[in-house]
C-alpha cells in the first residue's frame, strides 16, 4: 500500500517537472549573401518552438512563405522557384539539447542535435546553442549552416555566383512557459 502511494506521488512529481516552454513568434533568419552582390537574406518572425525542459527535447516548425525579404521579387522567386513553398509549405526541426541542466541568467553553450527537414529532405544537424533564463523566459540562440543542394534546392548557373554556397541560419527564440 505504502509503495503504491509512493509510486503515485513519484508519478505526480515527474508530471509536475515535465515542463514545456514554447513560442509561436520565434525569429529565424538566413543569410545567403555574397560580398559585392545584392544581399540575399530574409527573416521569419513566426517560428513555433516547443522545448521540454525535462528531457531537453525540442521541436520547431516554420512556414517558408512567412520569410520576409526586403525585395518583393526576391521573395517571390524564393517561394516559387527555389523552395516550391506551395508543395513544401513548412520546414521542421526535431532534436535534443544534450546534457541540459538548470539554467542561469548568463548564456551557457549546449550541444544541439537533431533532424532538419526542408523541402521534404531530412538532414542531421549538429550545432551549439546558447541558452539562458531571464525572468520567466528561456532565451535560445544559435546558428548553423546548410547547403542548398543538400535539400534539393537547385540554383541556376546564371545566379550561382550571387548566392553563397553555405547558407547561415540563425535562431533567436524567447520561450515562455506553456
Amino acid at each position, binding site marked *: 500500500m505504502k509503495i503504491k502511494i509512493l509510486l503515485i506521488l513519484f508519478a505526480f512529481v515527474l508530471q509536475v517537472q515535465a515542463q514545456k516552454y514554447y513560442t*509561436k513568434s520565434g525569429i529565424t533568419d538566413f543569410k545567403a549573401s555574397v560580398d559585392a552582390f545584392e544581399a540575399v537574406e530574409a527573416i521569419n518572425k513566426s517560428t513555433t518552438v516547443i522545448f521540454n525542459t525535462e528531457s531537453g527535447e525540442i521541436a520547431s*516548425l516554420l512556414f517558408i512563405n512567412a520569410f520576409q525579404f526586403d525585395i518583393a*521579387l526576391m*521573395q517571390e522567386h524564393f517561394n516559387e522557384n527555389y523552395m516550391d513553398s506551395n508543395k513544401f509549405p513548412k520546414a521542421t526541426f526535431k532534436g535534443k539539447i544534450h546534457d541540459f541542466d538548470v539554467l542561469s541568467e548568463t548564456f551557457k553553450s549546449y550541444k544541439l542535435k537533431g533532424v532538419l527537414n526542408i523541402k521534404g529532405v531530412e538532414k542531421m544537424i549538429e550545432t551549439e546553442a546558447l541558452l539562458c533564463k531571464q525572468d520567466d523566459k528561456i532565451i535560445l540562440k544559435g546558428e548553423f549552416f546548410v547547403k542548398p543542394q543538400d535539400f534539393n534546392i537547385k540554383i541556376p548557373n546564371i545566379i550561382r555566383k550571387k548566392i553563397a554556397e553555405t547558407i547561415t541560419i540563425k535562431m533567436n527564440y524567447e520561450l515562455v512557459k506553456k
Partner: protein
Amino acid sequence: MAIFLIVFFAIVGLVIINTIYKPHKSIQDREIKFSGTPVILIKEVNKDFTKWQDKAVQLTGKITSIDNLGFTLEDVVYCQTNTGTKLSQQKLNKTITIIGRVIGYDDLLEELKLDQTIIVN
C-alpha cells in the same frame, strides 16, 4: 535624336527598376477568399491546405489570448500583425473582425497561423 535615345533608355531603365524593386503585395491588395468564423476556416484548411496557403481571409471571432506579437481567435487561429503593435488586454474575450494572410497550419500547437493581420472592426 540623342535626346530621344536618352529618354528612351531612361524609360526602359525605370521599367526594369520598377519590376525588380516592386513593392510588397499588401494585404489590402489581395482578394478575400474566405469570410466567416475561425472554426469553419480550420475545417476548410484541413480538407485541403494548399488551397488556402498565402490567401487573404476575413475572420470574426472572440479573442482568447493576447501576446506581444499577436493574438489568438477562438483558441485556434493565431494572428500576427506586421507592425508588432500589442493589443490591449481589455480586448480579451471581445469579438473582432480581422483580415489576415494564411501562412500555414501549425501542427505542433494545433492552430492556424496568419500574418499581416489588420483589425477591421
